[in-house]
């Protein structure tokens, strides 16, 4: 017999090898391709913004937990790291560093820890950070370095609007899509990410690669990303079909802005998305609809962040009303006496 006592605990006595930490790091791995593209396109500034966001998220979590709340420090669980990366991905790469730090404080301090920490937050922390910065510093948050590819060199000298910004502005000034299109990047450029926009949202292909990895690792299911994108395609498709001169095509809508980043990485955040497959579909339809409404009729050119945050608020309600089907429910039980 061993010197250590025999453990008597309730079943089950085995456990799968999945842990929360592994899930978090899987998402981090999935974001690497998009990060590499970003560094390639925007250069060192993308690397600096991301590093600062990660470092400040970790530091704020450490500081607040250790000195303010005096609770256990959980910075190794991977979630603050992930928040840092996702926040950076939603910022322009030329944003002043101090703003990145403010965004991190809002994300970790207000959106996450004040709600009770990991698992208790209602809103996606990275998106709360981003939206806080967007409404506080609208000018800096919408000045994008535009990537220009000439032959072999990638230059990020020009600042300008994103594709969605160009479309919105053009339409406002009475231009038609035919007049606006020459200004827009080509579909291939959008796919590979050689376009203006937030640090991590431009390369559709790199993000899709990461998304597929998450699906393969079963960190996310297809329900949210596919439904969000399908809803957007259908809605923008209807408008485009009716009036292609005043509405951009579904392809432009899917490939530009934060659609793919949002659908695969932000809306699927485990903590802030519904807990049943039915609920996930409802949640995703909501995000798709609100995004398109903001993009087509709102003041902002882009609406993914707002759409996700608005639908985050509905998650408790969705969880209450869209429950899994109970085994044997709605089948009339004959009482059999023994």
């Amino acid at each position: 017999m061993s010197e250590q006592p025999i453990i008597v605990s309730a079943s089950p006595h085995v456990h799968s090898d999945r842990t929360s930490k592994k899930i978090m790091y899987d998402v981090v791995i999935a974001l690497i391709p998009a990060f590499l593209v970003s560094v390639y396109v925007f250069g060192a500034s993308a690397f600096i913004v991301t590093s600062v966001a990660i470092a400040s998220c970790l530091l704020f979590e450490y500081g607040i937990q250790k000195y303010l709340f005096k609770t256990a420090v959980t910075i190794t669980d991977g979630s603050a790291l992930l928040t840092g990366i996702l926040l950076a991905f939603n910022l322009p790469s030329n944003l002043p560093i101090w703003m990145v730090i403010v965004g991190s404080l809002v994300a970790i301090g207000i959106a996450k820890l004040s709600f009770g920490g990991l698992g208790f937050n209602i809103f996606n922390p990275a998106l709360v950070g981003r939206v806080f910065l967007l409404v506080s510093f609208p000018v800096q948050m919408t000045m994008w370095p535009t990537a220009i590819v000439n032959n072999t060199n990638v230059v990020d000298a020009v600042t300008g609007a994103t594709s969605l910004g160009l479309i919105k502005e053009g339409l406002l000034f009475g231009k038609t899509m035919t007049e606006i299109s020459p200004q827009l990047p080509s579909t291939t450029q959008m796919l590979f990410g050689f376009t203006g926009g937030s640090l991590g949202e431009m390369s559709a292909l790199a993000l899709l690669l990461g998304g597929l990895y998450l699906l393969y690792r079963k960190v996310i299911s297809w329900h949210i990303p596919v439904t969000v994108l399908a809803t957007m395609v259908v809605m923008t498709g209807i408008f485009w079909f009716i009036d292609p001169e005043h509405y951009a095509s579904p392809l432009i809508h899917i490939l530009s802005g934060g659609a793919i980043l949002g659908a695969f990485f932000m809306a699927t955040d485990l903590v802030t998305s519904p807990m049943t497959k039915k609920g996930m579909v409802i949640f995703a339809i909501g995000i798709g609809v609100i995004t398109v409404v903001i993009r087509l009729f709102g003041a902002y050119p882009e609406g993914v962040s707002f759409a996700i945050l608005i639908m985050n608020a509905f998650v408790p309600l969705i969880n209450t009303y869209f429950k899994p089907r109970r085994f044997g429910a709605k089948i009339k039980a004959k009482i059999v006496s023994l």
Partner: protein
Amino acid sequence: MLKTFPKGGVHPPENKLTSAKSIKRMAVPKVVYVPISQHIGIPAEIIVNVKDAVEIGQVIAKSGGFVSSNIHSPVAGTVTKLDLIIDTSGYKKQCIVIRTDVKNEANFQEIEYPLVKDIILEPKAILQKINDYGIVGLGGATFPAHVKLNVKEGTVLDHLIINGVECEPYLTADHRLMLEKAEEIMVGVEILMHALNINKAIIGIENNKKDAIDIFKKLTQNNQKIKVAALQVKYPQGGEKQLVRALLNREVPKNGLPLDVGVIVHNVGTIFAIYQAIQHNVPLTERVVTVTGKKLENPANYWVKIGTPITDLVNEVGGLPEGTRKIVNGGPMMGKAIKNTDVPVTKGTSGILVIADDEASRGEPKNCIRCSECVFVCPMGLEPHLLMNLSEKGLYERASAEDIMTCIECGSCSYVCPSHRPLLDYIRFGKQIVKKLNTAKN
């Protein structure tokens, strides 16, 4: 595509270390400890006194009511004590201690029972005999078999399902029994079909026991009434409701029984015990037990007399290895951890699992990250995270409304939880309170 149940389930590493090992006979112990409560329901009533001489198969405790069962002496010997001993539940229970008479040859005779195919008894007599011979469900739940077979007149019953799933990792008792006693099990199936007047039977076996499937395929080749179905390997397919859903696509209603959809389910072990009782007049005094664990010298399957101390079994496979931290009565998913091996084998002991240091401790519980895995794997369509929360906060009325009582305690939720949350622990606790509240209400 192999059949399976559609909602939920997990697939833990199978670890069937002993599936190639034929069942050996354990030596008859010097002393047997026979608890009077080895089944679900009312404990049996002791009808022997200290110093009484008992024969093998003699009734030593009589069924205490309808949901109860007779208990027979596994050995010939003398009753030395009627005492409280700790059984596999971890509680002290009344127990009959019998010293084996080493001079009595009956104790050491190995009887080879010939295969008897002809069924002579009338249905009523068969059911009575199942009651008299102390047969209980050997799959683990130990529900008295005669209660399950007591079908009210007018009930439409069209299928008998034989549970050869053995979805618990490690355990191979049913698997070996199916390989070694296939023909007897076939007769047992016919006995039950005759007794219940059912024309169709399906033997459900998971696909990790291909040899057993093959044997029964051969035996049922020209049989129009009995069929074999290979099932996809998925836990908890051995649960009655999941098995009925997998094989017949019928869903047992909430709070209902398989009987409500015209089905009766019995485990292969129970079927063999019924065969022995009906054809050879042998009461249930022994069963197959898998003694297993990754660090054991020689894990194996045994025919074991009820009442044999688990210590004997562990010694037979080379003793507890260095670094043993957990001993489980049953499989790793639903088995009960026991404090030490001074506990007797009962009718419900399908296996003894010895777990070493590296796998014995639970991970430290962390915050729920709302990943929904528990919801996805729950075979009953429940929300384990919610039920745990409600139980923890004492909101039992709501837990009841969220169908906490339909939980089958399979443990899939706790198994997958990436935050190592003790979901099933709290759900069990909540169920106990809800049950008490419901009884108080009535």
